[in-house]
């Protein structure tokens, strides 16, 4: 079954949090991918919601572009909102 399309799996671990990439799997269509995602990635009560995306539908940045894309922000510390005190009770920022 290795010729089946690859899918990327995203799980929301609890309400209020964002879906997070947890891994991938092979499945012929969305319905089968959903069943497999449930069986492979939520066996230990990991989540409350699943998103699936065909890996082929993801556009990824090229590793060779790393310098051009990301280096320019390296020395611009003033873009970080790190000069404000944050209240303790605000989580997940």
């Amino acid at each position: 079954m290795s010729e089946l399309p690859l899918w990327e799996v995203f799980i929301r671990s609890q309400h209020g949090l964002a879906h997070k990439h947890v891994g991938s799997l092979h499945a012929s269509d969305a319905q089968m991918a959903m069943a497999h995602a449930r069986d492979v990635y939520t066996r230990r009560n990991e989540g409350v919601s699943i998103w699936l995306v065909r890996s082929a539908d993801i556009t990824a940045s090229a590793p060779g572009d790393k310098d051009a894309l990301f280096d320019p922000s390296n020395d611009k510390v003033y873009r970080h909102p790190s000069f404000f005190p944050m209240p303790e009770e605000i989580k997940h920022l």
Partner: protein
Amino acid sequence: MTAYEPKVECLLRLGDTALVLGHRLSEWCAHAPVLEEDLALSNTALDLLGQSRRWLTYAGELEGKGRDEDDLAFKRDTHEYRNVLLVEQDNGNYADTLARQFYFDVWHQLVLQHLTSSGDKRVAETARQALTEVTYHVRRSSDLVIRLGDGSEESRRRMQAAIDEFWIFTGELFEVDEADQAMIGEGVMGDVRLLKDAWCARVTEVIQQAQLRLPPASAMRSGGRRGVHSELLGYLLAEMQFLPRAYPNTKW
């Protein structure tokens, strides 16, 4: 033949059936065709094991001989087991395992739905707990029967052969004997004969959707519920019971 009280008998039938099928499915662990299916079958096996523990624990308490779930699982011989013959059949190829599972899951869901209105609160609660798991099982096995039946030429041929092969074990699922009658009378268990039409309708629907043909009518085999098993159960128990029999009372 060992005789049990009617209620213990009926609870053992539920518990043993879940236990034996759970063990059969666990035999696929690390041998399934793909990783995703391997985990899915192991999940189902664990669901069934959990359900069997609850039925067997209750059976042991009612029996009143001080036997717990482990005693009942590991210290009974084949003639004392009460599972239906369907679930002790060998795994065969993947289509065989799925056909067996599909016939069982559709029946299991109907039986548990029926038992949620049992007059025995513990039976009703155990059935209710199991039902969410089984709702997923039946969806999964139905889906795969359709995919393989309506798949390639080879998968269609194998799925048809498997659907035909296990058909003869489905009659036993709807048998009612004196023990069942007694429990139906007390409102503890449901009358499985009333579920047969719903089972046939659901099974027919899936088989047709899978572009397969219904198995031809044939003589049904039964006996497991009375403790009359094929030799297959002996091999299964030999493996399942080896450790506690070889090393009694051993702990992790």
